[in-house]
């Protein structure tokens, strides 16, 4: 894929060089000679160098963007993993019918990791100047995260065990949040 893109950029650069030469001939009334002189050779070399530089520039630019996107996507996946871990812990507590002191501490720590991983995604989106995506991420996840945290640490947490209602609410919010995280990955991939 990288090599194919490099060839595309080289072709674009050559085409651009050709356009510049046509522009010189037709618009600036430069003469077109059939024999090759030193100046023509110089122009030809210039065109090749120009095409090469353009290729390098765009190659680097597109390559950097891909690295940024991959980095942000890996952070979103990490956030999704923390969310999944929180959910697994919630289900264990629901199945056990009780929340021990250790469970309480673990749930709070897992939720802190979810929140902080969301924060890292926001910081990266801001640093990479993906303002629209940052706005979308904040709108999509902030309120859902708070709702999720409320589902599993609100009410009488940690005194009373989770009931069926808590289970349904957690399931609904978890699926919404997860689906938003996946939609953000697709959105970033298509920038």
């Amino acid at each position, binding site marked *: 894929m990288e090599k194919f893109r490099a060839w595309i950029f080289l072709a674009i650069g050559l085409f651009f060089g050709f356009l510049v030469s046509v522009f010189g001939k037709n618009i600036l009334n430069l003469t077109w000679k059939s024999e090759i002189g030193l100046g023509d050779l110089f122009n030809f070399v210039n065109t090749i160098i120009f095409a090469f530089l353009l290729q390098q520039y765009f190659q680097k630019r597109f390559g950097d963007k891909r690295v940024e996107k991959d980095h942000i996507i890996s952070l979103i996946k990490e956030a999704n993993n923390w969310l999944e871990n929180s959910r697994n812990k919630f289900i264990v507590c629901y199945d056990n019918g009780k929340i021990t002191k250790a469970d309480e501490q673990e749930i709070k720590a897992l939720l802190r990791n979810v929140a902080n991983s969301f924060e890292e995604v926001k910081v990266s989106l801001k640093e990479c100047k993906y303002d629209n995506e940052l706005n979308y991420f904040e709108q999509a996840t902030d309120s859902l995260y*708070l709702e999720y945290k409320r589902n599993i640490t609100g009410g009488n947490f940690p005194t009373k065990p989770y009931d069926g209602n808590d289970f349904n609410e957690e399931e609904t919010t978890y699926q919404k949040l997860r689906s938003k995280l996946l939609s953000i990955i697709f959105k970033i991939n298509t920038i």
Partner: protein
Amino acid sequence: MINTMNLPQMMVRIASEFSETPGPRSRDEGDYSGQQFLEEILKPRFEEAKNTKQKLIVDLDGTDGYATSFLESAFGGLARIYESREILETMAFKSNEEPYLEMEIKQYIKEARKT
């Protein structure tokens, strides 16, 4: 609207002044509850800050984390006694360990219903 930017400051450090393991919602549910924090620390300090025109900084770092039940009981509880606007003007929050907490607490203050 009062400009609170240049007000002198006073601090509440939850981890050192209250507990490193903040607990449940109310006193009858267990130790270090949100209700206990509200009654013993937050409300008196808030009143002092308000009366002496100081900014009250709540330092949330250094604990094991906060459940929604604790935060809602403490900060939502304060907003059931005083106006949300007045609380948000007087208080500020510091949380390097979990920046989301500030947004969360402000939401509980704004959403608190007076009973």
